[in-house]
């Protein structure tokens, strides 16, 4: 077992898969010689050559379009978007092509493309380096959408994504690249080196897509969260003094409704947390699922805590970020209700 941060874990996932499968290629801006602006592909071009770790023109639409063609020709491309905020120029290729190719050809063609995109804020990135657009992609049938919250899951999920024959949008909470983050910027930064989930097998293993994970068992309230918010939720539960059951959703689509509903049926209360804007976001789907499937178990309204419905600000990101105090207040509210 090696100790890895999330960047290293992702790098290791790609390394392992490139070693095992000559069809795995990487494509993206600055991913080759340089190793990526977040260094996730460091060393891979040197190891696997310029024809497999490919520096690309700055054109996300072209990157996705070419990746689809490569996938159709038998490769397993991993396309890196430099920031999730820059995925939109590739949106048409993702939504109109990648997501629906298998369906429209009745299975005769498909493209097993994985799109990696660093998401989320807390790095003073302002409106164009902080977004969490997962809720836009979870609405697109045919896509799988994943967001890990720790190095061990990140590697195992990324390997699963690469091996999956369906397209996967793989969001990486960049605030977690180098350490867990409980949402308080005043606290000293912690690193994955001391964290049990920073213990990552050096070899091949998978964490299956489509399975959520209960990261803390509890009886009072279920907190549904993913990515950075998994850590924030833990801090919030402590702040609120609540015996919370915390579920790391991990695969956002298709959703592991069983794990979620089992938990809410047990606790009778639920708080949903994400960093993305609230209105019409993915949290609404989680809430809807919980409401539909656990209505008769609910003792209080299911509550969402999310980014405000504004662009992600630069200066006031800690007022924007749904931090532990905001989540704790919601937990307390839900616990006090009726």
């Amino acid at each position: 077992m090696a100790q890895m941060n999330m960047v290293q874990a992702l790098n290791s996932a790609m390394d392992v898969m490139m070693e095992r499968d000559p069809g795995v290629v990487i494509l993206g801006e600055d991913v080759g010689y340089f190793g990526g602006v977040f260094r996730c592909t460091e060393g891979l071009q040197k190891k696997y050559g310029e024809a497999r770790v490919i520096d690309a023109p700055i054109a996300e639409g072209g990157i996705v379009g070419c990746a689809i063609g490569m996938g159709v020709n038998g490769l397993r491309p991993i396309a890196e978007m430099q920031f999730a905020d820059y995925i939109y120029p590739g949106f048409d290729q993702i939504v109109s092509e990648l997501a629906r190719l298998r369906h429209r050809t009745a299975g005769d063609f498909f493209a097993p493309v994985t799109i990696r995109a660093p998401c989320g804020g807390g790095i003073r990135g302002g409106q164009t380096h902080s977004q969490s657009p997962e809720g836009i992609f979870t609405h697109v049938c045919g896509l799988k959408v994943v967001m890990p919250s720790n190095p061990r899951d990140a590697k195992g999920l990324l390997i699963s994504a690469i091996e999956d024959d369906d397209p996967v949008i793989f969001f990486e909470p960049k605030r977690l690249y180098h350490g867990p983050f409980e949402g308080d910027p005043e606290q000293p930064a912690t690193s994955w080196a001391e964290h049990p989930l920073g213990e990552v097998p050096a070899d091949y293993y998978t964490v299956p897509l489509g399975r959520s994970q209960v990261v803390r068992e509890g009886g009072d309230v279920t907190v549904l969260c993913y990515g950075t918010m998994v850590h924030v939720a833990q801090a919030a539960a402590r702040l609120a003094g609540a015996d919370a059951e915390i579920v790391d959703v991990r695969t956002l689509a298709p959703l592991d409704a069983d794990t979620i509903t089992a938990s809410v049926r047990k606790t009778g209360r639920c708080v949903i947390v994400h960093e993305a804007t609230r209105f019409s976001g993915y949290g609404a789907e989680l809430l809807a699922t919980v409401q539909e499937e656990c209505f008769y178990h609910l003792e209080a309204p299911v509550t969402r805590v999310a980014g405000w419905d504004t662009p992600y600000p630069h200066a006031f990101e800690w007022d924007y970020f749904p931090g532990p105090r905001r989540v704790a207040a919601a937990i307390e509210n839900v616990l006090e209700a009726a």
Partner: protein
Amino acid sequence: MTQAARFHVPHPSARPGEAPDFGYLRLSAAGAVERPSPDARVHDIEHLAYDLVRVLDDDGQAVGPWAPSISGETLRAGLSAMVLTRAFDDRLLRMQRQGKLSFFMQTLGEEAVSVAAALALQPGDMLFPHYRNVGLHIARGHNPVELMCQCLSNSRDMCKGRQMPIMYHWARGNIFSISGNLATQFPQAVGWAMAAAIKNEQHIAAGWVGEGSTAEADFHHALTFAAVYRAPVVLNVVNNQWAISSFQGFAGGERRPFAARGLGYGIASIRVDGNDFLAVFAVTRWAAERARMGRGATLIELVTYRRGAHSTSDDPSRYRPRDEWKAWPLGDPIDRLQAHLIARGEWNEADQAALEADRKAHVDACWREALSYGSMTEAPRLDQYELFEDVYRDMPRHLIAQRDALRALADYQPKAGPASEG
């Protein structure tokens, strides 16, 4: 409100009621354009983007350096495929008018664009068509019955009823699926070609878009990626002068041929008479050879004319002279190839009549067979629950639940209404 002085608005050369005028087309005489070696430097062959490669002269002779050495057999195969394409086109258009198909798009007048290219490429080369390339399927031998079944959304529809008519694909025949979203196939073709190069395989890719679609982002993406990685791909722009109601000037074709776009990227670019079977064949061969030898992509502009309506939902008499096509200076691709075969002494009018009758009869037989597999509204039909398949490789829980809900709905008896309503 008067027209603003510095706001230029392109105008087609003729609107309904006016005399057709194709004077804007830059034509070269047959045989007049030189043929460089396929490994020529782009710098040395820029003129090819402005000239018009033509092989067949007015007497049906193949003239000049681009005249390909091509067997009579291949020519007859091409002629046959073009005639079949047209018979197919004609039949399905009529069937749409009779309500058998929900929709159709003709290829009329553009047969050489597809058929000649298909014959010039190798069967293992991967084709990324747009919707007016059914000739690729026919020339590669895709059974018309299968194409018709797609158009009928019947029990044998390769798309399982999921796509509108004409959105064919053929995995075994190496022809990619047609998308509703314009131009998306262009960078995909480049990516396929890049993969072939990465895997050190010899096959190349070819893609097609309409001239109107060159304005889309994916045209630019395709050219950029093809240029940067010198991808072995042939990128075709079918300039049929119209994009629904918009003439080619609205895609930026007023001052430069579309072929010229390639030059700025350093991509070899050729403008060719799209109604000249031999010219399309020769230019495609040249481009394929160039790609196979590692010299990268070629952008080919095929100058042709969309003779029919845009689709069965369109009425072109609202925006262009009703018989504009009659003034089209580059003739009809079938007539011209026929004239050539006759000039070669390998064909005569009786052969042509026989071929046309035969292909028409074949289409009729295919149509009858296709109908026997049902239609969108008549049995045998596909199972409607198929619509939940292939969203993912394996059906996830929520889709199973939705499929079951649709099943259950069949038995539902509304409280206050007839069970049949809705």
